[in-house]
Structures are given as C-alpha cells and as structure tokens.
C-alpha cells in the first residue's frame, strides 16, 4: 500500500528532472558518436562523416533542453544590477516582465518552426547525410521550446517566492 506514494514521488522526480536525463543521454551520445568518428578515421581510414548531421542536430536539442534547466535555475546571463536595487514590488514586476518577453520569443520560435516542419513534410526534404526526413531533426525545436516555456514559468515563480521570503 506504500507503493502508490513512492511511485508518485518517482513520477514527480521524473517530471522535474525529465530534461536533465534526456539532456545527459543526448550529450553522451554526441560525444560517443564524434569520438567514434575520430577513431574510425584515424585507425581504419573510414569516415563516418554522415553522422555529423546527427551530432549537430542533437546539439540544437541539448541547447534547448539545457536552456530549459538554466531557465528554472535562473542561470542565463543577464544584467540584474539595476533591478536588484528597486523595491520588492518592482522586482517582482520585472521578473514577470522578463519571463513574459522570453515566453513570447519562444512562442514565435514554436510558431515558425512548426511552419518550417510543415514545409519540410510537404516538400519531402531529406537530410543531406543520412537521408532521413529533415523534420525529424527540426521537430526538436518546437517540442523542447514548449518545455523551455514551462521551465520559464517555474523559474519565475521560484524567483518570486524567494523575493517574498526576504
């Protein structure tokens, strides 16, 4: 009978750390594929150059997934010198001002990346190296941007709560 709460806890951990796990796996894959490529080229004089597109596309995915984590941890670079000297109420306002602009930017990115994907499907564009449909790579942009927006909201709420504690 204790299984249910434990499973719920696990599920909660998974919800919070979902992109961390995915990000770590993709990053490890990037390193392994690139390293294998170096090995095969120098040891067997056989180039796996077609895998390059896989690695650079995962790089885009990892940027968005890691970016989502960074928004939750508020690790993105910025200039908070002026804002930090304002009243608590204004600080709260600017947390949400910044979050809204960020969400707006990623919504625009989602909208146009979906249009790009639809075009790629209609024109049946395939990748130059492996020859798989290009949109298999592009789909990462809107998908992980949604996650970025969720973490943006979460990060802003955490920052607001920290302000209220002061």
């Amino acid at each position, binding site marked *: 009978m204790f299984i249910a709460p434990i499973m719920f806890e696990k599920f909660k951990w998974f919800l919070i750390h979902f992109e*961390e796990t995915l*990000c*770590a796996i993709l*990053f*490890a894959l*990037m*390193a392994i594929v*690139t*390293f294998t490529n*170096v090995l095969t080229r*120098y040891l067997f004089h056989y180039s796996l150059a077609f895998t*390059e597109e896989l*690695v*650079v*596309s995962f*790089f*885009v995915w*990892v*940027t*968005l*997934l*890691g*970016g989502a*984590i*960074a928004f939750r*941890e508020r*690790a*993105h*670079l*910025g*200039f*908070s*010198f*002026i*804002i930090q000297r304002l009243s608590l109420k204004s600080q709260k306002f*600017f*947390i949400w*001002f*910044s979050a809204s*602009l*960020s969400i*707006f*930017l990623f919504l*625009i*990115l989602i909208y*146009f*990346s979906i*249009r*790009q994907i639809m075009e790629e499907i209609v024109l049946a564009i395939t990748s130059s190296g492996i020859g798989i449909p290009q949109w298999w*790579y*592009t789909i990462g*942009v809107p998908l992980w941007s949604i996650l970025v927006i969720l973490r943006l909201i979460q990060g802003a709420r955490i920052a607001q709560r920290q302000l209220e504690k002061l």
Partner: protein
Amino acid sequence: MEVSFFLFGLFFLLLFLGVPIAISAGISAIFFLWKFNLGIQIISPNFFANIAKFPLLAIPFFILAGFIMDRVGLSRRLVNLLHLLIGPVPGGLGLVAVCGCVLFGAISGTGPADTAAIGAVMIPAMVKRGYDIAFSSALVASAATTDVLIPPSVAFVVYGVITETSISGLFAAGVIPGLIMGLALILPVYIISKKNGWGGDRWGTKKEIWQAFKEAFWGLMAPIIILGGIYGGIFTPTEAAVVAVFYGFLVGLLIYRNLSWQILYEVLKDAAVSTSVVMMVVAFAGIFAWTGSTLGIMEKGAQALLNLSQNPFFILLFLNIILLIAGMLMDAISIYYIFLPILLPVIKYFSWDPMWFGVMMTVNLAIGTVTPPVALNLYVAANLANISMERISRAAIPFVLALISALLIITYFPSLSLWLPRLFGLY
C-alpha cells in the same frame, strides 16, 4: 543612423531591465525583422543553423572535458604539486593560485570553470594560511581570466566561427598573451603578500615532489594531448575536444578510480547547462547580428567609427576603452556577435590582422569577467568564498590594473600574439 540607434537602444533597454542577454537580442531582432518586413520566419532556420555548426561543437566538448578533469580531482593534484614547488616564497600560495589557474586553463575552456575548479581548492587553503579572504578570491578570479586566452578557449572558437579565422591559429596566438597576463599578476601578489607577511608552509622534499608529480602526471598530459594533437595536424579543435573528454573519462575510470555513474550523470548535466547558457546567446545574438547587417546598420556604425578618426593608434585605444566598458555589462560571446559586425569593416580598413585583433579583443573581454557589475569570475569566486560582490570587487582593483597593463603590451606589440602561429605555419 536613426534605425541603428533604435535596434541597439531596444537591446540595451531590455538588458538594463534585467531581461537575459539572449532574450534581449532575440526580441530586438524579431521586432526589427517584423517592422522592416525582412521576414520574421527566418528566426526558425537561423536558430537551428546558428547552433548546428561543426566547429562550435568544440564548445560543449571542451566544457565537458574541463568539468570531468575537475571532478576526478585533477585541479587538486595540480595545486598540490605547485604547492610543494613554490609554496614558501612571499605570496607563495598566491603564486600557486596564479600558476594553477594558468595550468588548468590549458585543460578548461572558460574562465568561470577555471575559477570554480582552482578556487574550490585554493581559497580555503589560502585563508587557512592567513591570507585575506577577499584578496584570495579576487586573485583566483583574476588569474582565471588567463583561461580565456590559454588554449583551449570557448571564446576563440566563437570568434573564429564569426570572423572565419583559423581556430587552431587563434589558440596558438593566445598562449603568450595568456602567460603575460599571468606574469602581470605576480607583481601585485608579491607586493601585497610581502607587506602582510603572507607566505606558504615549507619546501617539499624530493620524495614528496616526485610523489605529487606522479599523481598530477596524467593531468599534465592532457594539454599535451590536446595541443599536440591540434598542432601535430592530427586533430581539428572539435576532435581534440572530444578526445580530451574521453581522456579525462579514462583517467577517472582507470587511474584515479573515482568516477561513478552518479558523477558522470552530474557532470554531463552541469556541462550541458553551461553549454546552453553560451549557445542560447550564440543562437539569438546571431539573429541580432544578421538583422543588423541586413539593415545595413553595422556598416553605418563602422563608418561612424572611422569618421571619428583615421589614426589607427587612436582608434585602437578608443576600441580598448569601449570593449572594457562593454565587458562590464555583458559576456564575451554576446559582445562578439553584437560588436564584431561593426568592427570587421574597420579591421579591413586598417588592414589589421584578424588573428591579432581577436587576441586583443579577447583580452579586453577577459578583463571584463573581473570588472563589475557583470563579472562572471568574481561572481563565482564570491559565491565560493561566501563574501559580498562589493568586498571582492574592491580587492580585485590591483589585479585589474595589472591586467590592463598586460593588455596595453599585447595591443601595441602584435608580434607577441603572432609569433607562435607563424612558428606553426598557421598564419
């Protein structure tokens, strides 16, 4: 002139209102893309293409390599060896910190990572031996600025990609300027420490030194593999970076035997977050630069700069001042994307060497990591030492002055940067 004012004006307005740099650049870019009907839809393919470049892959891999080498205990072993070799002279532990940062800089690719790795070991050690805590943490942060110049360097990878300059060449060009910056720090360390009677414990015995050398040996091999591989013509910088990742992984797994799945997972996650912070700027500031260039704003900016004066020495001094100020407000990567499109026509006009200019610009931006209000290295060191930004900033003043004198030497003697690339035939 009006339009250019607004594109940059909107960017700086958002920046000062606390919006992250990447978002400020992205929002001002799409606003102008929309206003001037340049086709806002380019945001999607540009975002993808700005990141998906093979040379840029050196960034995540060098960050990951540095994080792994730190976690398996390499920075601690390097510092141990240095301590036995130079510890007891006046300011000895300070010198250990400087040399440690320079040496670890040959493994790690960013200043904040170097600050964290060496600072975690050196700041407590220095405080224990009686050094002032603000002095110690400001010193580590300042010495870690050399990491940006000492190869491998994330900043040079980005500069190389934007200006289409050889990254291997830039790596070679950074070595001597990086060492000059390290040397420049020794003087204030020596004077301040001597005045306060700060030193080290005792000289290491031959046996101790040999033992420490054996422990640090595998770490000292890493830069030889990375740089030897690049300059032996065996690896591209990206390949060298991924080789360094697996080298660090194997050293941790087989020799130091302290690498667990848990640590590997944490290192991958932390390195991914650090990478993303850089790459988000690359993606959106890249769109900003594209927008500015398409609107012809960047050329107008260059023209305005040349109208100011035709004297290259004056323009150089002026650029140094502008870049130092920019470095107080932003990180290096953003500054490359936002300022280089304006500066490239100027570089061409005076027929300056882009490799030397890259080194000069990067030294400016490296100093920017220890000049508040935006001072990444100081921020990391202040957090490690648990002291206020005000305190660490005040303690950093003598070091910043020393670094600026190094900057002037590097700016006005281009051969210091270009000698090594010429030697390797990369120039």
